[in-house]
């Protein structure tokens, strides 16, 4: 056999592929109505998946960002066991030095120290229980949105002043207004009575109903003096430059404080376990719905694949009788199905990007109750987030499942016998 024959065979195979594709494309438009309906079904499923996944990711990001941003921060250093059982005596010794070390870790954007206790707070006419939080007025604004959400008066300014900012609901419950005095009564670290009289300089509205109802912020120094804490703190709060890199930064932070005993490094998902679990739960329900949607759409279009083979039994019989190989016929049918699917995916992806883009521009208001949204840490509008994940995961799932469905009629082509097939109706 000569090189020329090889060459001819290669050319033959190339043109066969071309022929197959051309045949497949023409077959598609033999029945344009069916093709359009099938493409539309695939496009619809793809669009819904792209949009919904983008919406979920946008929603989750907003939830995490706002929950973490209000107060919690990306990473916290605490005394071992403080997170499970927050007690006044579980402190970080020499918090200032510890914070300095943490601030030097690459990827750390801002650091602040806090102390926290529960105490009785009294206005001239009312008494309530509240969480008293000692914060550092200079560094706190980089870690929490509360300093920016002071609606009346101002945030704490001096590190040693005997002043306080109070949550809106708590202030209302205490019938407390700006400039009035607040008395704090609690228990110090050494078991003695902790008493302080503070001037209310600001009233904040954080957007978190819990914090607005129960929190008083005072300067950390004042807290340490009142509760006999020395230079101890309960948590060192860290903001990283990028939320997605939190785990790496947390490891580096842990390494930087490895010398200190009894220090636990916790990331936001450990600190806000409810939020993490809530997202997991919502995502699970979402995956269930998407699976069903893909399943139903697949069965919706399965008939197209099936009919494309059934209605051409005779034609295939003739082709087989003329010497066309069953494998080639199978490839043509498969190419037909894949073209159909890819067309649907492309249209669906385009629509999904369009809809998500539009919604991403205007935002989606999906519940009328702002209180409800606040409880879920959701802003009034949710912006779908188109990223590599939301753009690929839905279309790939649709492609994988529907391709499996397209294989099903192929079995029939392989089994065709020319004579019987030609006799078919």
């Amino acid at each position: 056999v000569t090189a020329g024959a090889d060459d001819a065979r290669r050319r033959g195979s190339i043109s066969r592929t071309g022929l197959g594709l051309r045949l497949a494309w023409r077959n598609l438009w033999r029945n344009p109505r069916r093709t359009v309906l099938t493409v539309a079904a695939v496009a619809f499923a793809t669009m819904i998946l792209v949009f919904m996944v983008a919406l979920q990711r946008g929603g989750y990001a907003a939830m995490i960002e706002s929950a973490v941003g209000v107060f919690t921060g990306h990473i916290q250093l605490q005394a071992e066991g403080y997170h499970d059982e927050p007690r006044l005596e579980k402190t970080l010794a020499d918090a200032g030095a510890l914070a300095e070390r943490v601030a030097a870790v690459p990827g750390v954007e801002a650091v602040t120290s806090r102390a926290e206790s529960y105490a009785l707070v009294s206005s001239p006419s009312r008494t309530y229980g509240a969480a008293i939080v000692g914060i550092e007025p200079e560094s706190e604004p980089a870690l929490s949105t509360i300093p920016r959400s002071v609606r009346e008066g101002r945030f704490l300014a001096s590190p040693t002043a005997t002043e306080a900012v109070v949550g809106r609901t708590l202030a209302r419950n205490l019938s407390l207004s700006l400039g009035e005095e607040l008395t704090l009564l609690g228990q110090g670290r050494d078991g003695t009575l902790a008493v302080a009289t503070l001037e209310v300089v600001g009233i904040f509205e954080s957007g978190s109903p819990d914090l607005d109802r129960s929190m008083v912020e005072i300067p950390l120094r004042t807290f340490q003096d009142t509760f006999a804490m020395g230079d101890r703190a309960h948590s060192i709060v860290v903001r990283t430059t990028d939320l997605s890199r939190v785990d790496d930064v947390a490891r580096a932070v842990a390494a930087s404080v490895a010398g200190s005993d009894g220090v636990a490094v916790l990331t936001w998902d450990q600190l806000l376990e409810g939020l993490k679990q809530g997202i997991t739960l919502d995502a699970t329900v979402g995956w269930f719905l998407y699976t069903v949607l893909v399943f139903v759409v697949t069965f919706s279009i399965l008939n197209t694949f099936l009919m494309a083979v059934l209605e051409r039994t005779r034609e295939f019989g003739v082709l087989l009788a003329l010497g066309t190989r069953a494998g080639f016929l199978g490839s043509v049918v498969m190419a037909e199905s894949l073209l159909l699917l890819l067309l649907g995916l492309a249209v669906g992806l385009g629509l999904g990007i369009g809809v998500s883009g539009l919604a991403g521009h205007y935002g989606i208001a999906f519940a009328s109750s702002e209180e409800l949204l606040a409880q879920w840490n959701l802003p009034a509008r949710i912006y779908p987030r188109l990223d590599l994940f939301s753009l690929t995961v839905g279309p790939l799932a649709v492609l994988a499942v529907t391709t499996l469905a397209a294989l099903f009629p192929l079995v029939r082509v392989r089994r065709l016998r020319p004579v019987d097939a030609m006799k078919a109706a």
Partner: protein
Amino acid sequence: MATWALISRLAWRNVLRNRRRSAIILVAIAAGLWSMLFFAAFTRGWSEDVSRHAVATLTGHVQVHAPDYLRDPSVDHAMPAPEGALRGVLDGEAVAAWASRVRVPAVVMSERETAGVTLVGIDPKREQGLSFVADAVREGRNLEGAADPGILIGRKLAERLETGLGKRVVVMSQAADHSVVDRGYPVVGIYAADRSSTEMAFVFVGRDAAQGSLGLGDRVSEVAVALRDPSGLDAFVERARTAAAGLDVQPWTALEPMAEAMVALGQAWIWMFYFVMYIAMAFGLVNTLLMAVLERTRELGLLQALGMRPRLIVRQVLVESSVLLSAGVLAGALLAGATLALLRDGIDLSALAEGAEMWGMSKVIYPTLGAGDVVAAIAFIVVLGALASLYPALRAARKVPVEAITRG
């Protein structure tokens, strides 16, 4: 009538003509309906749980307060125990149970820890059929009467306070004369609730004990009412408002706006999912019917040439579509029924309990299928499905007989 019989027979035969094709679209419809019903049951189970929880925790169906209590829930805004006309309404036919309570913010202290809570003074007998506390005690005993000197605390709070049965806790609160009073109570019982936030929020003492220590005399903070028939809510609120002149009467829907909002949100989700599923199915249905019609072009032309009116052809295709739809709906409904029967012990979410709590769910969700949701889902599929089939049906009837027959 005879035409209907004929048409139905023709339609039925056409469905059976290509069994595989019919079976495939049937699976799509059945799976679609199954998922619609399952999702509706899950969402309904969630939103009913939210409202049941809102009502049964302490709110009841209706509450009566002094005018400013809801804005400022302090000891200052107490009211006399119900009497006269209001008492008459409360003791009337419509009410299943009612109770008056003292309810004020307080601080509870054990030897080791301090926590902010709501102190609720109750008459335990009257809470039966009204609030969860009537049978929530897991350790120790319930309060024995309005004068019981003990305190009931939540399981989670007991852990936080490191206290337990038989130990004493001190409750500090503001008294009617604005002084801060503290009083020690022995822990006689520890209760459990669906949600840990409830266990942290409320401590219960005898109403008389609370009134005594707070200097309230026999004044109370609130009256909570459970109705025999919750659908008579609005009418009852009207009557109570007339009877309780000068007091603030509110239905639970106003007291728990979040629950109301969650129920509305759940309903919206159900509709959205119905719609998406319907579209996914409709494409397949139209496509399948269209194939069935187009491959019969000749036959349909012949029927027309023989004198069958186009209207009957349309009807025949619609019946064909209804047969497919009904079979799919039946299969889907049976499947959904079986699934829900399997899940009648509830879907256990305790692995994600804190997350469930964030969405207002309990640890176990009981899927609940409302008759309305079933009817809506089926009507949605059948009516809109028939509507979608109009296109293939009209196409089938459009062909001019001669052209249809002569065409290959």
